[in-house]
């Protein structure tokens, strides 16, 4: 129906609505998240009147929300990106401010510490300067701790921020879930209330400020929001369903944190999300991963590297009290409660018990409600039980040098897991208690003789023996620690030096067995080429043996001790040794039976050697003629009788006996076998040599004891045991076959021949049966004894051992090698270095004993090395010049070590990549500066991006009052015009009525 009135009234209705929309825009000009609305106006369907179409006015199609999804998304992304920079800029700036400010940086404390050490160099004995150095060292330790504490506080602050952000995300998610529910009631976006959509977008934008979102929109406008990169992990918000988002921190590593979604059903596990970032949350994570943790670990490395290097130098130096080996700093082990125990109100405090502390990797603290005490349970190595360290009465657990105190109230039995690692910056403490102990001096000095003719000056340094680079291995690497010959190894003189007996060894005993040649013996040398024991070397042997390849000092020259000459406090004796046993008896038994010839006696050569004084008892030579035994030979019995008759033995109450005891288990009773003992044919009761079993054999032998001097008995496992009859102990037993059978074809299944006896010496006190200078191991071996080389006294030098002669023999050893302090040894025994031949050669002597330790030619400019000391001379030392290498306890003003410490101010430290501590710290600060700069630049760039995105959105959705004012006028005019239409219609009607 097209008529003026209805046209006018519909237009009035439309423009009233249009004006209302504009008014609504104006009303919401300051509403957060409001999108401008416009009224869509369309013409009504025209009506046909004849051939013409007449318009029927206008109608309202919809109130349209001005909105662009793409622009909205851009804004959300740029919001996330910018929000991520903000905490990064703030936190990094804070750390930089602390680490690079002149008052709180580590560098100031480092400078003061090194300056104090440098100043101490001018008067190393000054207690005042020492106190300053020590307090600056304490301040350095404190500064490390303060920076570490600061990092921890920033870690905790960022942790709180992260947790708060997570809670905010959860709150926003719940709100958004509510909006989603409302949106879900309509099926199309166009049907949704614009305000609801504005609310949705506002919430999404706020969420994006906290964390980067992955948003998918359903046709109805319902959104699904995911966090992170793992699409399969489930959504934070899906429709009306909202999951709780959470974060878990690792108390042991600040750069490790896990984000997760709580399961919808309690029975399901948490869903761990990866790649969660962006927004304030992402900024905090980036800060912790890329700034906080690297800064802390760099600071820890610096603390460890510096403490190790300072301590290494400090230990080598000497304090005013003359002591060496002290640490200046210590690192407490870093023990932390792992897992959630810290959150349950438990905490752990550590301190050093004093001295070195070892780090225990991981262990448990368990509380026992019965004893009302904590105890540390340390798991043992595989196969070992756990170690339990309970708390003392004060509640303190002392674990490998660290004192632990657990705080917190246990409710019944508790178990806390503890992780331990090497301490870092937060665990640096001053270890030195007294200023006098600061090691400013070197422990050794090289003093020139007062009347030295030349003006040559000597300097010395000490570097612990590096271990011979060439030559044989140490005794412990060559032989097992077992003196039994079976544990030995076969050697010959061709092996050169066999092994080195390291300095500091105690009670070393080398066992030589199997020598038959008089030339076979063990030689014991010092590395300087001085022969302490064994036969002298020929010139050819000297040339081939005394070389660097064999482990001798380069340029060592051969020297042998004169007879009866002692070498320092060392005694090297060869022989057999009887030590007192628990019953108060010292006894010595032959290792084997005597070696006897076919007649049953020792060889003439051995007999001659014995009579010539080859043996000594407790240092007294044994001499005199050896009488033949009853059989007319010099058997074990004769030697035992000879020994027993020696004054040295009777005076010491030592008895010497011999006994021949033979055991045979492979008896052969085949009818052709027979047996003679000491030349007497053994026959059974019926006079036959055909003995068929063991008891018959025993009987047969015992029947003829009178003639043979041998008695027999059956052993427990069916063997035959033959022994000397009473009164004939020690005589050899001659075993023969019955002629004309083969020589070893006898009942005993043993080669025919003479079998010697075994020697036994026994006395009430320890004694030594030793070889004198002319005695040889072969002589000893003939008596059934292995030669033991005992190295007694204080062994201050490495010794090298070789073999003489052409035989291959077995050498076994017993040893004990405690750690040797070469420095302490040099300090205990002063040495003199004397120059001879106009300064062309030198001799090193031990001052107290006068023992010559080394001798060599002096090459001008070359250093002289002995026992870890390196001596260098400026100027040519002259004839008779002497230099004393001695303890430096009096050299209180010696500043050599404190200068080495002070030089660390600029010297590189290997553990710090050969940078000095100051440079290492400066590069840490520089890195922080770069990070801070980058964060600021990133923020500025992202601000521009966000501003552009805001403008783009604003262009679409923003409300401009000018624009609204124009619209207002436009719609007002249209409204007025529509009103005029109605008035016109009235006028027309009135006109019609007036007709």
């Amino acid at each position, binding site marked *: 129906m097209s008529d003026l009135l209805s046209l006018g009234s519909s237009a009035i209705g439309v423009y009233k609505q249009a004006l209302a929309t504009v008014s609504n825009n104006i009303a919401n000009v300051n509403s957060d998240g409001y999108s401008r609305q416009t009224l869509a106006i369309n013409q009504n369907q025209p009506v046909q009147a004849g051939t013409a179409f007449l318009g029927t006015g206008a109608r309202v199609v919809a109130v349209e929300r001005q909105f662009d999804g793409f622009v909205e998304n851009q804004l959300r992304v740029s919001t996330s990106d910018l929000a991520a920079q903000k905490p990064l800029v703030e936190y990094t700036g804070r750390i930089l401010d602390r680490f690079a400010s002149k008052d709180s940086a580590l560098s100031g404390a480092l400078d003061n510490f090194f300056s104090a050490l440098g100043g101490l160099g001018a008067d190393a004995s000054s207690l005042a300067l020492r106190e300053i150095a020590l307090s600056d060292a304490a301040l350095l330790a404190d500064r490390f701790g303060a920076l570490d504490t600061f990092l921890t506080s920033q870690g905790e602050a960022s942790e709180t921020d992260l947790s708060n952000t997570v809670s905010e995300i959860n709150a926003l998610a719940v709100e958004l879930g509510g909006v989603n529910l409302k949106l879900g009631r309509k099926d199309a976006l166009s049907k949704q209330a614009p305000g609801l959509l504005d609310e949705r977008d506002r919430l999404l934008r706020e969420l994006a400020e906290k964390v980067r979102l992955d948003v998918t929109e359903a046709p109805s406008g319902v959104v699904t929001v995911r966090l992170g990169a793992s699409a399969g992990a489930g959504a934070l918000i899906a429709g009306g369903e909202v999951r709780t988002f959470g974060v878990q921190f690792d108390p042991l590593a600040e750069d490790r944190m896990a984000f997760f979604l709580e399961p919808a059903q309690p029975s399901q596990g948490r869903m761990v999300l990866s790649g969660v970032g962006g927004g304030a949350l992402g900024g905090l994570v980036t800060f912790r991963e890329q700034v906080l943790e690297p800064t802390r670990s760099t600071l820890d490395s610096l603390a460890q590297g510096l403490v190790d290097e300072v301590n290494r130098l400090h230990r080598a130096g000497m304090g005013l009290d003359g002591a060496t080996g002290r640490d200046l700093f210590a690192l407490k082990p870093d023990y932390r409660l792992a897992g959630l125990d810290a959150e349950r109100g438990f905490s752990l405090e550590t301190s050093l018990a004093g001295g070195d502390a070892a780090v225990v990797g991981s262990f448990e603290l368990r509380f026992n409600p019965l004893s009302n005490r904590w105890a540390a349970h340390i798991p043992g190595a595989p196969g070992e039980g756990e170690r339990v360290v309970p708390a003392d009465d004060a509640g303190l657990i002392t674990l490998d040098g660290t004192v632990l105190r657990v705080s917190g109230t246990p409710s019944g039995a508790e178990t806390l897991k503890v992780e331990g690692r090497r301490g870092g910056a937060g665990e640096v403490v001053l270890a030195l208690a007294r200023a006098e102990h600061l090691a400013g001096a070197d422990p050794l000095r090289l003093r020139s003789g007062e009347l030295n003719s030349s003006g040559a000056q000597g300097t010395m340094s000490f570097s612990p023996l590096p271990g011979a680079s060439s030559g044989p291995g140490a005794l412990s690497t060559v032989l097992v620690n077992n003196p039994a010959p079976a544990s030995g190894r076969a050697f010959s003189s061709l092996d050169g030096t066999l092994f080195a007996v390291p300095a500091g060894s105690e009670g070393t005993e080398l066992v030589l067995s199997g020598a038959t040649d008089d030339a076979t013996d063990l030689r014991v040398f010092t590395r300087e080429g001085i022969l302490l024991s064994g036969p002298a070397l020929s010139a050819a042997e000297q040339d081939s043996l005394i070389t660097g390849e064999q482990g001798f000092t380069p340029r060592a020259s051969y020297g042998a001790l004169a007879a009866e000459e002692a070498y320092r406090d060392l005694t090297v004796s060869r022989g057999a040794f009887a030590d007192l046993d628990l019953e108060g008896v010292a006894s010595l038994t032959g290792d084997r039976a005597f070696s006897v010839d076919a007649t049953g006696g020792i060889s003439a050569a051995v007999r001659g050697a014995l009579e010539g004084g080859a043996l000594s008892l407790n240092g007294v030579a044994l001499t005199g003629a050896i009488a033949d035994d009853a059989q007319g030979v010099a058997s074990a019995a004769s030697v035992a009788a000879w020994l027993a008759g020696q004054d040295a033995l009777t005076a010491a109450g030592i008895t010497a006996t011999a006994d021949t005891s033979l055991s045979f288990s492979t008896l052969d009773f085949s009818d052709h076998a027979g047996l003679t003992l000491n030349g007497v044919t053994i026959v059974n009761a019926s006079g036959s040599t055909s003995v068929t079993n063991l008891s018959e054999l025993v009987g047969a032998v015992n029947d003829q004891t009178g003639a043979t001097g041998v008695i027999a008995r059956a052993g427990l496992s069916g063997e035959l045991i033959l022994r000397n009859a009473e009164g004939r102990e020690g005589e050899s037993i001659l075993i023969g076959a019955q002629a004309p059978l083969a020589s070893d074809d006898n009942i005993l299944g043993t080669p025919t021949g003479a079998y010697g006896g075994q020697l036994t010496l026994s006395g009430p006190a320890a004694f030594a049966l030793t070889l004198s200078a002319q005695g040889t191991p072969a002589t000893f071996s003939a008596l059934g004894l292995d030669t033991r080389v005992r190295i007694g006294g204080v062994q201050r030098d490495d010794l090298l051992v070789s073999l003489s002669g052409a035989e291959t023999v077995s050498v076994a050893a017993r040893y004990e090698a405690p750690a040797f302090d070469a420095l302490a040894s040099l300090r205990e025994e002063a040495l003199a270095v004397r120059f001879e031949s106009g300064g062309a050669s030198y001799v090193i002597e031990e001052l107290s004993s006068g023992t010559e330790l080394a001798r060599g030619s002096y090459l001008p400019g070359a250093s002289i090395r002995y026992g870890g000391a390196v001596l260098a001379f400026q100027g040519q030392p002259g004839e008779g010049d002497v230099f004393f290498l001695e303890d430096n306890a009096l050299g209180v003003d010696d500043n050599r070590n404190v200068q080495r410490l002070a030089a660390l101010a600029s010297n590189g430290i290997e553990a710090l990549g050969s940078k000095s501590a100051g440079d290492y710290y*400066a590069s840490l600060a520089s890195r922080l500066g770069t990070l801070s700069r980058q964060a600021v630049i990133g923020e500025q760039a992202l601000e521009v991006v966000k501003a552009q995105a805001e403008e783009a959105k604003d262009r679409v959705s923003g409300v401009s009052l000018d624009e609204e004012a124009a619209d207002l006028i436009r719609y007002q005019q249209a409204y007025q015009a529509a009103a005029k239409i109605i008035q016109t219609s009235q006028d027309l009607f009135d006109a019609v009525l007036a007709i």
Partner: protein
Amino acid sequence: MKISTVLQFDRAAGQMGKLTGELAQQQARISSGEAFLAPREAPKDATALLRLDALRSNQDVRLNLLDRAEARADLQESALRSVSDVLIRLKELGIQAANDTYSDSDKKVFALEVRALGEELLSLANTRDAEGNAIFAGAATRGAAFARGEDGAVSYLGDSTRIAVPVGESRSLLLARPGTDFFTPVAVPGAAEGTRESFFSAIDRFAETLETGGDVSATTLPQLDSMLEGSSLALARVGTDLSAVNQQREILSEERLQTDALISDLRDLDFAEAITKLRADQLALEAAQSSFARIAGQSLFNFLR
């Protein structure tokens, strides 16, 4: 291009806030006189300063050590001058005593003075510094440098350590030398080649020779000559040390000045520049405020009356 009313106001407010903040910071810099208030404002300069501060502290230590070396050399110089004086007096006595006109009893009188001068030399050899350290004892500064033993002979109790302190990158100076460098042993004339006796033993023998009426011309006089020579040499050495101290101090002071200049460049505020910037910032803020006032007044509604 459409700008919404809210954005227009937000932008203007943000702009002005930023300018106000910068002004406040600039003002704080001017009042503190420092180029930056916190390292984050100038990370590069702040970290460069850490290195420069370390350098300066190192230079301070070296200058300090130079002072110590100078004090020590001064002390040695004055002791050695007295030693020279005593030696000259001894030489006079020696020449007099060598004159045959003096009887044995006269020589005994000389001997008394020689003994006294010997003791004076011994006390000079045991000179200590303000800290109580013997200055002619090497590093063994606690006890006496030279002391008379039970047998009456003087022996050197110090050591041969030379205490050096670093005063430059590769330059060090000796703070202490062994006492035998100053009180040098002398050859014994007439004895086998290379036979020497200590400084104090030569003086004791001088006195003994006089006491027994012996002749001092053959032995003591040449020894006194070489002692005087040794003492001059020692003085020359100390003089060299002192000139090295002065030379090194000049070098170090120059370096120190350069370091200070570098530090000041980075740390101290350039006031002219700072105040210019303050003015510029002020101007910018005023302009922003007045333009905001104008633009905010511009609204279509104002014209719809």
